[in-house]
C-alpha cells in the first residue's frame, strides 16, 4: 500500500470502531450524566452477532468447529437466523437495542441513578461476562468466536477487503459523529444536558425524564453495537475478554480522557488511548497498566475537561495574551 502497511490501516479501522462506541458513551455519560458501565457488553453483542454469521458462512453446511469440540450435535436455535446476512444485520442492532430498552426501563423506572446505576450496570456486565465464558451457552466459551474467513462472499484476508472495512468504519464514524452532533444540538439534546445538570428541575418542568434517559440509553447501546459489528471482521476474533468489567470502564475512560461532553473529545480519546496502547504494549509491555492507571488518575484530578478541553484552554490562553 505504498507508504502505510495494510496492518496499520486495519488497526486504525479498529480504533474507529471504538470511537463509534465512545460517541455513544459520550451521549449517555457526557451529555446526560448517566454512567453506564456495560457498554462493552453491547459492543460485544454486535461483534458476536456478526461473528456468528461469518462463522456459519465459513463452515458452510457443517457445524462450526468449536461446536464439534464441545460435542454439540445440531445448530442451537439462536444461531439459525444468523445464516442470513440481512437478518444478522437486523438482529445485531435489534438485540442490543431491546436489551438496553429492558435494562433501561427497569433501572430508570425506579429512578436508579448516579452511583447506583454505575454499580448495577457493572454487576450486569460481570454477570453477562460470566455467562459468555460458559461453554454451554453455545458462544464459544473462553475462546470466543474466531477463524471466520469471509463476509458477504468476500475473503477477509485480502488487502482490498481490509481497506474496504477501514473505509466503511471511517464512513460510519463520520455518519455517527454527525448524527450525534445533530442529536446534541437538537431540542432533545438540550433536554439531555438539562437532565445532567439538574434532573429534578427537568422533571418539575413536566418533561418525562425517564423517556429521555431510556432513548439515549438505547441510542448509546446501538452505537456500541455498530462499533462491535465493524470490529469483529477486522480483528478476526471476538472473546468474552472484550466485555469484562475492565473493558467497560476503559471505554468510559476514553471519553473522560478525550473530554466528556464533547463529541470531538470522545473520538479523540478513543483513538488516542488505543494508539497509545499499541505503542506501549510493543515498547514496554509491562508498563501499560501503570500508564493507563496514571492517566485515569491524572485526568480525573487535573484535566477535568479531558484532552480536548486542555487544547481548548491552551488556545484560549493564547487569545488572552494577545489582547
Amino acid at each position: 500500500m505504498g507508504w502505510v502497511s495494510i496492518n496499520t490501516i486495519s488497526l486504525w479501522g479498529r480504533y474507529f470502531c471504538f470511537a463509534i462506541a465512545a460517541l455513544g458513551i459520550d451521549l449517555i455519560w457526557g451529555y446526560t450524566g448517566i454512567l453506564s458501565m456495560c457498554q462493552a457488553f453491547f459492543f460485544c453483542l454486535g461483534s458476536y452477532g456478526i461473528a456468528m454469521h461469518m462463522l456459519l458462512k465459513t463452515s458452510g453446511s457443517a457445524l462450526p468447529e468449536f461446536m464439534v469440540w464441545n460435542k454439540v450435535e445440531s445448530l442451537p436455535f439462536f444461531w439459525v437466523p444468523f445464516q442470513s446476512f440481512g437478518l444478522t444485520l437486523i438482529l445485531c442492532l435489534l438485540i442490543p437495542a431491546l436489551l438496553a430498552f429492558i435494562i433501561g426501563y427497569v433501572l430508570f423506572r425506579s429512578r436508579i441513578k448516579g452511583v447506583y446505576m454505575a454499580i448495577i450496570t457493572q454487576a450486569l456486565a460481570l454477570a453477562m461476562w460470566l455467562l459468555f465464558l460458559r461453554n454451554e451457552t453455545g458462544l464459544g466459551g473462553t475462546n470466543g468466536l474466531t477463524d471466520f474467513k469471509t463476509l458477504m462472499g468476500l475473503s477477509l484476508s485480502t488487502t482490498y477487503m481490509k481497506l474496504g472495512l477501514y473505509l466503511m468504519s471511517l464512513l460510519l464514524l463520520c455518519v455517527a459523529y454527525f448524527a450525534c452532533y445533530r442529536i446534541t444540538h437538537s431540542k432533545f439534546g438540550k433536554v439531555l444536558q438539562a437532565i445532567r445538570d439538574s434532573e429534578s428541575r427537568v422533571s418539575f418542568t413536566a418533561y418525562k425524564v425517564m423517556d429521555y434517559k431510556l432513548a439515549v440509553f438505547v441510542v448509546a447501546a446501538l452505537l456500541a453495537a455498530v462499533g462491535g459489528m465493524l470490529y469483529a471482521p477486522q480483528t478476526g476474533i471476538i472473546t468474552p475478554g472484550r466485555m469484562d468489567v475492565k473493558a467497560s470502564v476503559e471505554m468510559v475512560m476514553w471519553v473522560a480522557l478525550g473530554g466528556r461532553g464533547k463529541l470531538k473529545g470522545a473520538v479523540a480519546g478513543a483513538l488516542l488511548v488505543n494508539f497509545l496502547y499499541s505503542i506501549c504494549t510493543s515498547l514496554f509491555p509491562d508498563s501499560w497498566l501503570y500508564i493507563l492507571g496514571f492517566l485515569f488518575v491524572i485526568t480525573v484530578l487535573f484535566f477535568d475537561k479531558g484532552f480536548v478541553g486542555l487544547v481548548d484552554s491552551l488556545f484560549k490562553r493564547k487569545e488572552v495574551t494577545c489582547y
Partner: protein
Amino acid sequence: MAATDSTTIFVSQILHDTEKTYAIQQLVARQDPTTFALLNAINSKKLYLLNDQAVTTGEKIPSSNGAASYEIYSLYPKNELLVNRNGQPLHTSIDALTVVEINRADRLLLNGILPILELFSTEPAKRMLAYGQLKNSHAPHRIEMLQMALARETNPDALRAGKDILFAIQLNTTTDAQTAKNYIDSLAENWGDNAPVFLSEYAKSNRVNAAYAAQKALELEHRYDYLQKIQNLFSGLSLGSILILIALGLSIVYGLAGIINMAHGEFLMIGAYTTYCIQTLFTEVLKLPYSDLLFIISLPLSFLVAGLLGLLLERLVVRHLYARPLESLLATWGVSLILIQTARSLFGDLTAVKTPAFLSGGLAVSPHLVLPYNRIFIIGLTALIVLLTYLMLYKTRLGLQIRSVTQNRNMSACLGIDTKRVAALTFFFGSGLAGIAGCAMTLIGNVVPDMGQTYIVDSFLVVVTGGVGKIVGTIVSGLGIGFFTKILEAFFQAVYGKVCILLFIMLFMQYKPKGLFPYKGRLAEE
C-alpha cells in the same frame, strides 16, 4: 506352634538373607495375617530394620530443624506403633533406619494377595480403598479377613467405611429375614458413604426384606439432603461474612464522603500480601521456625498497612474528589490498576500463605457434616469486627463525628467538626477493614494480585442493596446475598446463580431504590 515357628524363620530369612524368593513365596501361600503388615511394607518399599527389628514408617512428622522424622511401626510378630521410654510415640529420622532391599521380581510375588495385604496398610486411605475392593472380590476368606482387619482399625473414617462393606457383604450373603433386617439396620446406623447405594441395590434385588432396605435407603438420603442443606447454609453464612467484611469499609466511606472506592478490593489484596510478607520475613529471611502466632500478628498488621496506604491514597487522590462519586470511581479504578500491576511485579502471579495449624481441619458435627475451622474463624472474625465497628461508630467521639458528617457535611463543619480530618480517618479505618478481610482471605485461597477484583462488584452490590452507610443494611444484605448465592448454586450452576441474584436485586430496587435501610429525612437530591 511349628507353623508359627517356620513363619518366624521365613521372616528372619527375608530380613537377613540375600535369597528371599522362597521365603516370600511361603509367606504368601500361608496367608497368615500376622505377616501381612510385613508383606505390605515390602510391597510399599518401606521395610526397614531398627535394632534388628522389622519396622516401617508411618506418618511424617514435620520438625523444626528441617530433617523430617517419622512415626515407626514394628511389623512382626506384632504390628504396633513404637513408643519411647516415656510412652510418647517414637520419632526417628529416616537415616537411623537400615533399608531391607527386596528386588522387584520378589515384590511381584505379592500381587496375588495384594487386595488383602492392603487391608493391613499403615495408611488409612489405602485401607479404605482395600475395604471397598473386597465388596466385589471373590477371595475365599474375605469376611474373616475383613473382620480381622476391622478389629485392629483405629481410624474412625476407615472403620466406618470398612463396616459399611462388611455389613453389605453379610447382607448380600444371608437369606434369613431377621438377620437381613439386622444387617440393614446396621448399615443404616453405621451410615458409611456407600450405604445408600448398597441399600438401594439390595432393594432392587428380589430378596427378603427388600422393601425394608428401600425404606432405609430413602431415609438415609433424606438425612443426607438435610445435612447438605445445613452445609449450604453454612457456606452461605461464610460467603456472606466475607462480603460483610469487605462491604463494611466500603459502605462507611461511601456514606461519609461520597467516594466510590474501586481500589477497595486492592486494600484487601494489600492485607493478604502483608500476611504473606510477614510469614516470608520470619520464616525465610530471619530463619525463625513457623508458628501460628505469625498469623495472629498479621491481623492487626494487615489493618495498619492497608489503613496507612489508604490514608496515603486519601491524601494524594481522594481528597480532591469528595462528593464527586462518579469521578472518584474512575480515579480509584486507575489506582487499582496501578496497585495490581505493582503487586504483580513485586510478588509474581501466585503465592500462598500457610494456614495456621489450629485452623486446619474442621468441626465434624457428624461424619457427613464437617464445618471447616477456617470458615468458622472468618465468621467469628466478622462478628467481632462488626461489633467493634458498631462500638466505634456509636460509642466514641470519632464515631459521633463520622455519623454527623455522613448526615450533613456542611452543618457538621459549621458546628466545629474538622470534616477533612474525619474523612481521612474514616478512609483509614475503611481501608484497614479491607486489609483484615484480606488477611482472613489467605485462609481460604491463594494470594494473587487481582484477588480484590473477585469480590469488589459483589460487595458494591451489598452496599447498594443494604443502603449506603448503614451497618445494619450491610449486614442484612451481605448475609442475604451470601445465602441466596449458595442456595441458588445448589439448584443452578454458580454462574446462573449469579445472574439470578442480579435480576433479583434489580427487581428489589424497583421497590426500594435506596436500599433496605435508607436514611430517613427530607434531604433534597441535588
